């Protein structure tokens, strides 16, 4: 466990904040990798890496449970513990790509988009959220994309009033020169399942970053297994072939705190 001081806290929206701190090892993380963040005396949780710069690393956190609510109370120069970076990363490509982010799942995709913007011919982005206030990073995503990002909200307060998967089908249906080669997705697992179903329908390759309850983060304890895979070590990024192998669980069930099977 390495401890470090929070260098900055940025409020992204009413429920979400981005924390930046110095950590040389995590500053070398690739898009898709995660770290374990220790909130002293409270908990230690897995968080996707949203950005790295020189010796610093950033994570974007929505206040949801006990640990994240405590983290939201923390300020600049408070101490946190860090382990990682852990897991695999998204595969880089130079083709035509589409990124689908749901809620804070947009964070690792923003990091990925920064890298893909250099190499890809087409970079589209669909960002879905419950409501306007929860949309993330639109200003940062816009200059990276080759076409204006599509926003969807469930309540229709901004962009299209639908789930992120609705405009996805239209984009996947495109043929010819603009045809999408790869879809990258991160967000709620039921959204990922739907993205998977659509990419299968249109025969487009995809990669998704999955989330599970994590304890050790190093492939030992089995808390985060999906099918034959450990999300912390074999993932968190899985491709179409792997998602096919775990489709009986994807978006359906997972292991709970006591190792019992619960709905996603």
């Amino acid at each position, binding site marked *: *466990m390495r*401890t470090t001081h929070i260098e900055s806290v940025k409020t992204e929206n009413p429920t979400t904040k981005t924390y930046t701190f110095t950590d040389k090892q995590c500053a070398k993380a690739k898009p898709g990798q995660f770290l*374990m963040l*220790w909130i*002293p*005396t409270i*908990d*230690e*949780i897995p968080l996707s890496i949203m950005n790295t710069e020189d010796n610093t690393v950033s994570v974007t956190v929505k206040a949801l449970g006990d640990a994240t609510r405590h983290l939201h109370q923390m300020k600049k120069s408070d*101490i946190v*513990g860090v*382990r990682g970076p852990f897991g695999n990363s998204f595969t880089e490509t130079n083709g035509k790509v589409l990124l689908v982010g749901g809620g804070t799942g947009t964070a690792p995709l923003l990091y990925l988009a920064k890298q893909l913007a250099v190499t890809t011919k087409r970079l589209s982005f669909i960002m879905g959220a419950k409501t306007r206030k929860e949309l993330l990073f639109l200003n940062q995503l816009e200059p990276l994309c080759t076409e204006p990002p599509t926003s969807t909200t469930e309540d229709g307060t901004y962009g299209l009033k639908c789930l992120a998967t609705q405009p996805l089908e239209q984009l996947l249906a495109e043929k010819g020169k603009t045809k999408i080669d790869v879809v990258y997705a991160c967000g709620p697992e039921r959204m990922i399942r739907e993205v998977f179903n659509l990419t299968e329908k249109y025969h487009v390759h995809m990669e998704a970053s999955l989330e599970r309850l994590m*304890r*050790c*983060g*190093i*492939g*030992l*304890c089995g*808390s985060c297994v999906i099918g034959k895979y450990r999300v912390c*070590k074999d993932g968190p990024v899985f491709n179409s072939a792997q998602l096919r192998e775990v489709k009986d669980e994807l978006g359906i069930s997972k292991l709970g*705190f*006591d*190792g*019992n*099977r619960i709905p996603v």
Partner: protein
Amino acid sequence: MGYPNPTVVQVNCGIINAMGLPNPGIAEYASEISFTKTVITVPLIVSVYGYSAEEYAEVAKTAAKAGADAVELNVSCPHVKETGSEIGQNPKLLTQVVREVKAATSKPVIVKLSPNVTDIVELARAATKAGADALTAVNTVRAIAIDAETALPVLSNTRGGLSGPAIKPIALRAVYDIYEQVDTSIFGCGGITTWQDAVEFLLAGASAVQIGTAIATRNPTVFKAVNRGVTAYLKKKKFRSVKEIVGQAHRS
């Protein structure tokens, strides 16, 4: 049953864990055991824990019924509330648990011993006398991690069990001592990462070895790598079987 995080902390040459045995219990595991038996070709040993002799027997019985080829009694987990390390540290309690489990199942019963005792041979003898078919030496070594910056213990459970290369020499000595003084079969366990480690445990007196922490530091492929290395070692030294080197280090 599990503890909140942090449950694992990486330290020099090993890891300290205090998971708290997070699992849904034997009722749910029974179906997992039955399913596993349909997809594997190797023997399945189920680790058993309980809060009383009766509970150990009940869990062991259910596991055996579900298809377990043997049960290993975890009487040495150093970080579970209430019982703590007590059963594995107390020859009388240990005898009681082993007898109860032996009466409940006809499958082989293995006892995983704790290194957190003054004389591990005494406990090895008690378990064997009570009917244990084999022993595993050793479980994790009691440990703690403290963070200097926050001046706090890192694990939510404060104390945990140290595993990995840091405890290998301790485990090796335990196996050596037990082999010397107790007539039983031993699973060597503690920090085994390479085939050389495995060979050392066999030479000390283990008939087989277990690997845990190296799954994290290497990969699940560590099992194949160790097996290959041991096979090559036997061939090079002109032994026909692992059996021929078990306890070899005692010949002097």
